């Protein structure tokens, strides 16, 4: 990858990587640092990383940097109990919910997920990655990715228990 291709990657992928990391960390400055570190690593490996593999490399690097970031902040182990719905919000049956609220609820539900489930679901929904690609990024095998996604989806469904909330 030469300088022009690298700069092209900045234009093409920096926003997507930033959104993915920001959604996981919820900290814009830390997210910017992580994205910057990912690009620095890619530039350092520019001799071996091709332009075609750049996006996957960036997401993989950013993901692992983010894991280190979580570990440093000792926040990675915090999760949310799938079976415990005491924290779920159950709106009244006749309560109307706007689209903005739906988005807020979805974001709240996402924040309740364990980091791994959150990451794989974001990679799946944001970037449309396949199970195999998500596995390459997260270091999981395809079956593990599938299990995490399934668990995450069911947890989201359980979180949004009231059908009137979104329909």
């Amino acid at each position, binding site marked *: 990858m030469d*300088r022009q291709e*690298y*700069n092209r990657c*900045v*234009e093409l992928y*920096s*926003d*997507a*990587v*930033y*959104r993915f990391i*920001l959604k996981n960390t919820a900290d*814009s400055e830390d997210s*910017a640092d992580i*994205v*910057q570190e990912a*690009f620095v690593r890619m*530039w350092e490996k520019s001799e071996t990383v091709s332009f075609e593999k750049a996006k996957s490399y960036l997401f993989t690097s950013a993901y692992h940097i983010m894991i280190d970031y979580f570990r440093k902040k000792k926040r990675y182990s915090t999760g949310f109990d799938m079976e415990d719905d005491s924290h779920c919000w159950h709106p009244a049956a006749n309560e109307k919910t706007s689209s903005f609220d*739906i988005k807020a609820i*979805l974001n709240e*539900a*996402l924040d309740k997920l364990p980091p791994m489930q959150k990451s794989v*679901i*974001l990679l799946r*929904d*944001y*970037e449309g990655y396949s199970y195999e690609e998500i596995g390459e990024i997260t270091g999981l095998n395809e079956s593990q990715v*599938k299990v995490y*996604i*399934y668990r995450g*989806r*069911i947890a*989201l*469904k359980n979180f*949004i228990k009231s*059908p009137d909330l*979104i*329909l």
Partner: protein
Amino acid sequence: MISHKNYMERIVDYYDGKLSQSESDALMAFLEINPELYEEFMMFGEALPETAAEDTLKAPASLIEQLKNIPDEVFVLSDEMLVAYAEKDLDAYTIKKVEEAIAQNPQRKRDLEILSAARYEADEAIAFPYKNKLLRREPIVFSLRRMMYYTSAAAAIFILAFFLWPAVNHESGIQSDSHNIAEMNLQITNSENTAENNSEKNSGNNNNSHIQNSDIATQLADNSTNASKNHEYIAPLSPRPAKQLKETAQIAPGNIEENRNEYIDIYNYIEMKNAALAESNVKTGTLNAWKEWGKGFLNGESSLTDTPADITLRDVATFSYNNIAQFASESLSLSQRDR
């Protein structure tokens, strides 16, 4: 061993007829020493339906019919199956089964709608704020140094092309004029000496010689004035008029061009720049054409806007500057990566 923990199981087994004689005796012995449990034993027996009633009890016909038609394969729509359906991970057969199950179960249909709605889309409004910091650019200091180097080289060439060439020609012409003037003065002196020497021999010819010398001196004075004017007229972009040069054979363009080679530099420079720019369709002019143009430029018959190339020298200057900047940038990029 019967205890307070398992006595109820033994009581149930007793009424079901599952206890042996010894086990029944043991149960009775236990109940004798625990009269409160014996009452419980009796109440449990009274609560049991009569055997005769059980014999007459029959299952409903609908239940029997349903049991007879139990399919060989029972499809249970689990949450995992529903998620797999939403993720489009199922084969065609299973998809059909899921859709049939969903159609029969409104609750599962609702679950599927929730699953489908709980999808996340990237917010395009969120953009990485420090994108410019990520871009890799050439280090400015080193580039400027190289750019200055090439710019200086280009400037030197164009100084030669635009300024030094006409100026040297003027100087050459002036020197030649001075030389001619000196030669003519010498001729005049010689003529005067000859006239003086011959005055005694041929006084009749003296008047004619003085008249001729006087005309020559006047002409030389004019030439001297013109030379002085020419010296002041060293404007780089205004060549000297050809008529003045034609008066002296020594500074005729035909003689000068044999000793000059600046046009070769210009020609080579433009060739090099066009090659660097990879613009093969640009007419650069032949060497002879540039030679003729150089002669014409000295004669005042050519101008800077009438070069053998498609581009003027001023355009070449602009071209060269940009090309030098690009060349320096690319060279630096390679050198940086080689480190």
